[in-house]
């Protein structure tokens, strides 16, 4: 993939500030993602999904949620 295409891919992923070094890493990621996708079984069916459990809301507990300040 050309550098221009990588920049476009990064922008589409919400990453507008990647340097050339980071774009090289993104190139490696792309190859790795393809390799992993090829290992997925081909017979997976839409009926196979994780079960999700929904709960009624509970009263708030006394411990506040922390929000990391990056």
């Amino acid at each position: 993939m050309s550098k221009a295409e990588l920049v476009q891919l990064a922008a589409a992923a919400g990453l507008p500030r990647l340097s050339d070094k980071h774009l090289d890493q993104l190139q490696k990621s792309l190859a790795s993602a393809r390799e992993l996708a090829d290992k997925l079984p081909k017979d997976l069916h839409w009926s196979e999904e994780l079960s999700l459990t929904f709960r009624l809301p509970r009263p708030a507990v006394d411990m506040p949620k922390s929000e990391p300040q990056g």
Partner: protein
Amino acid sequence: MSDLAYLSIAKAAQRLRAGKLSPVAYVEALLDRIGRLDARFHAFIRTTPDLAMAAARQAERDIAAGNWRGPLHGIPFALKDIIDWSGLPTTAHSKVLADNVAVSDAVVSQRLRDAGAIMMGKLATHEFAIGGPSFDLPWPPAVNPWGGNHFPGGSSSGSGVALALGMVPAALGTDTGGSVRNPASMCSIVGMKPTYGLVSRRGVFPLANSLDHVGPMTRDVRDNALLLQVLAGHDGDDPGSAQVPIPDYAAGLEAGVEGLRIGLVRHFYTEDCDAHPEQIAALDQAAELLRSLGAGVRDLRLAPLEQYATATRIIIRCEAFAIHRQWLAMRPDDYGDLARQRILDGATVSAADYIDALRLRARLTRQTLAAFADIDVALTASNMDPTCPIEDAEACARLYPRQARQPFNITGQPALAMPAGFTRDGLPLSLQLIGHPFQEAMVYRVAEAYERATAWSERHPPGL
């Protein structure tokens, strides 16, 4: 070496309760040991001696007044630095969060505080529990004392090293693809990944929410059960938290393995992955030992390791990228190279592949639990190889995927890694025991029987 360095939680608790050991003297001895060894092994990002001494003095007063709170009262511990402790920085070993001060305790921290345990500091981790070992971060990576200058595994690297060095008798780690059990295996300690949902993750920086677990790390099995006892329990504000009864995890420890059914998942380390010969021998000897103790041991075949690894890797990539995307967009240079690479990996996975990975996870979970129907506990490898020198980046990278821990992040089952001997060169070997969901007590029972018969847990790194 102080005889307090390798004192177990169980024995320390007896002495503390009886007034034969002062919490203040205990904490002073361990702080001294940390001060003497940590410049070389880097287990801690920061110690908290003032907090520890104040808590030790309070514990001493409380115990003397007859207000003993339980086996963790007066016991020193440390936290992987992605776990919040109110008023202390939670850095995730990253420049990105270097100034992030927690405004409240994580639920697990609060539980340890309530139990009277004594906070000693924050421990090294791979950056954001995903990128390591790295030498381009604000703090150096933790170093394994086994071998002298070796990779301790990760991502709960500081937790494994601090325990192996006798700096603390208890530590917490987290496990998304094996990060409690990997350092447990490489540092010759005991690490439990409990059932998904048994221990709250609130106040713990996530890696991949659907696979994240908090786990107890100790030097022996009984201590691990005692620590899990304090950590386990429902949290209504953790969306993954389970509402299940919490048993007494130490109650059945001495019941032995007579009549238990153990499944040996040998194909993981002999067919799916070609493990180191000494690791294979250690596992086969463990199976034979359990058989000699009265367990029925038979082969158990699960799906190939690669299927579990594929699902795990895709899920971690996507969920981690979703967490880090905004910081990665604004401050990509504040990440170390390894963490940035692994988080960027999630930018290139399609939504359809992520959904397929979830479908594969559902299939593997169904198949695995069905295979467990006729056994009580499974035995298999944790690591495939002994550790390697930490500065050999290629060797560290080669070891990373050679493991059999990810299957049980996928299924959420409890899985414990523990010592299983040493190579001829003196490096730790390990094994992994896996149970049915929420059957941690059964895993501990088998682990305790093996530990008693071998005493590997009594060995410590030489010369320290």
